[in-house]
């Protein structure tokens, strides 16, 4: 079977990533599998050290931008670039979210300054910037009339928060710039009581409070604990999102991660959890798509896929993204979030291709 059209055989890809990360490895493997030459690679560390390192990409016909995550030096450097130099985060520490985001925006700006055509970027840097801001993404989708849980931008202090939220209810409070369930809190209020459930470990040391991303989801019932957590997260910006009951397969709630490539919903993963957070790596499970269809029907699945496609369509000329779709107990799909680097779904094939291969092939088919 021909791996690619002969006339495009020498298409030169570029890659900006953390080279040690498995995402880079998947992409390299996909290029090789497609009979393409290796990408010109620039690491995020190099971009941070000196933006002119990006000039090596000037001759590339397609450039993939990949995640900066899972590299402590890069993360600390982003925070420094974002206005807090000298910070050295502990493993899993949840802090300096706004500074990291500002640093990230600065890096994306460096990419744009390379001056290559829009079509060269598989993901437009400006779109990536928007996808990393939950409120901006929400506004974009609301303007396009796409169904979303109701959402508001929260004030930046705990005192203001308690006056903005009603006395009774349940909500998700999500950091504007977090990912992978980092800092996502489920908050409940009733009769003057509050309870926060989150994948967070709260550590008090020498009068200081530190938060860590934790695979163990905990409930916090004491006001001083809740105040410590939200007091640390609110200043970096959070949104409140209505808590909608998710559909269930068996006992577990679910949502869908849909990888949309070139306008088409491709790889789909059912994420199941007994907790309000269905993020895959929190020890939650992948469900079977066939079970989803058996329980809710093909039309239900299609409605989710259509919505995911519409979500990416709001970012024209960005080739792919991982879209999270909530399928409610009312059987209606709603958009949750879009992940610029949400295409890492190891072991999931669609039409015989993994996500990286699907992206490479789609990139080859684009007009140059």
């Amino acid at each position, binding site marked *: 079977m021909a791996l690619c059209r002969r006339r495009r055989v020498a298409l030169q890809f570029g890659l900006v990533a953390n080279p040690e990360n498995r995402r880079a490895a998947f992409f390299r493997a996909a290029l090789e599998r497609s009979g393409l030459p290796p990408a010109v690679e620039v690491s995020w560390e190099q971009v941070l050290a000196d933006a002119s390192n990006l000039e090596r990409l000037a001759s590339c016909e397609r450039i993939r931008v990949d*995640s*900066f*995550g*899972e590299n*402590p030096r890069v*993360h600390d450097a982003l925070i420094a670039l974002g206005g807090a130099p000298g910070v050295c985060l502990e*493993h*899993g520490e*949840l802090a300096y979210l706004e500074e990291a985001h500002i640093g990230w925006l600065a890096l994306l700006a460096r990419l744009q300054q390379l001056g290559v055509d829009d079509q060269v970027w598989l993901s437009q840097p400006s779109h990536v910037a928007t996808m990393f801001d939950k409120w901006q993404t929400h506004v974009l989708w609301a303007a396009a009339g796409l169904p979303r849980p109701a959402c508001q931008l929260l004030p930046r202090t705990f005192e203001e928060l308690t006056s903005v939220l009603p006395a*009774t209810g349940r909500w998700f409070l999500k950091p504007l710039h*977090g*990912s*992978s369930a*980092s800092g996502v809190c489920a908050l*409940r209020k*009733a*009769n003057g*009581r509050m*309870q926060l459930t989150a994948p967070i*470990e709260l550590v008090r040391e020498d009068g200081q409070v530190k938060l*860590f*991303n*934790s*695979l*163990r989801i905990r*409930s916090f*019932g*004491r006001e001083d604990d809740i105040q410590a957590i939200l007091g640390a997260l609110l200043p970096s910006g959070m949104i409140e999102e209505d808590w909608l*009951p998710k559909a269930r397969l068996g*006992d577990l*709630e679910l949502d869908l991660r849909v990888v949309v490539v070139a306008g088409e919903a491709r790889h789909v993963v059912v994420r199941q959890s*007994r907790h*309000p957070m269905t993020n895959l*790596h929190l020890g939650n499970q992948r469900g079977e798509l066939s079970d989803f269809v058996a329980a809710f029907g093909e039309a239900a699945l299609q409605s989710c896929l259509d919505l995911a496609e519409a979500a990416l369509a709001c970012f024209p000329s960005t080739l792919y993204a*991982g879209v999270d779709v909530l399928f409610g*107990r*009312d059987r209606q799909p709603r958009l949750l979030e879009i*992940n*610029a*680097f*949400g295409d*890492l779904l190891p072991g999931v094939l669609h039409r015989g291709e993994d996500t990286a291969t699907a992206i490479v092939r789609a990139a080859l088919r684009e007009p140059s």
Partner: protein
Amino acid sequence: MEKRELQFMDGKSSKFWRIELDGACHTVTYGRIGTEGTSQTKEFGSPAEARKSHDKLLSQKLAKGYVDAAGGGAAGGGAAAGGGDEVPFIAFPCTTGSNGTGSHASNFMGLRVSRFSAGKKPGDPKKAAYFFGSDYENDTFTEDLEAFLESDVAAEARALVLGPWAEELYDVSSAEAVKLLVANAKKLPKLAGLFVGDIVQEENEISWIHQCDLSPLFAAFPKLQLLRARGGQDLALSKAKHAGLRALALETGGMNASVVRSILSGDFPALEYLELWLGTDQYGGTCTVEDLQPLFKGKKFPKLRYLGLRNCDFVDDIATVVVNSPLLQRIETLDLSLGTLSDVGGRALLQLPKDSSLKKLDLSHHFMSKQLMKELKGLKLAVDVSEAESPDDEWRFVAVGE
């Protein structure tokens, strides 16, 4: 031919497993209690090989918590499924898996839990425990319960499970539901088991469930054998007495000491099974090991076989004291699971008296070291040290930046 019949019951299943050894082959039959089940026969090269396989399969099942069926042949429908009045002892626990209160019970008192909806044909009262619950889509708890009380099956019903009694449970207690049952007790002459508060984490957190004084149920239902309730807020048992109650299980995130004191100064002469989730002061628990001393003195509940002091953040203290209690000379199972048991409590348990009557020690979901787990497994009784919790910092993750 040798035959061994085992049974297993919890909040998810009610199963039997039978093995018959005949010369060089054995036949395994398994399935839901009350059904014929599925049979598989396996032949071996010799009787010795068949016996080896037989013994191995048996010990696997016993390690999983299966027990010998009462009377050796009760699997064919005797277990609570209408075959006799007495609820089998193994039908009292109601664990629904290691996720705590994450799932509704699909099995209660050995019966399959079946939702009762007004206007729909109900399940067979000989096989079903009827479930009532409001949810996001249908706030029909009261309507369903009232319809049930007027229906034909009420007179035959053996067990009821009360789920969410309102769509939003924040400030609605179980009081109205309890009043309704008490007022209509004459319509439920066969009621042997009741679960008040099968409410899962997502519907309402355990420490947010509003209970009430449940003791009117004792006065109204003299034939009650099993009462399970979830939720500690406003929970009370002001008149703690019942001549025939054999099992009492109260699940809370923090139990009020007054409830424990009521039980221990109360009158439950027939009690065989006592399960208390004592919780933590963070969720309203005011109980300490001192409040349990009347129990540890050993004279209460002469028929007690199972004692569970679960979900407790002072379980180390309990372990230290209980090893010296005369209770351990007569009960079969001590359950200290779901709590914060550490090496302190574990080491105390190593001092279990050699003449203790205990057959099973459940310490699942604990914080003990591998070394201590190994030593406890060396004790001459069945010890469950599964679900060892690892230290918090092993659970930290780095955001992947998607």
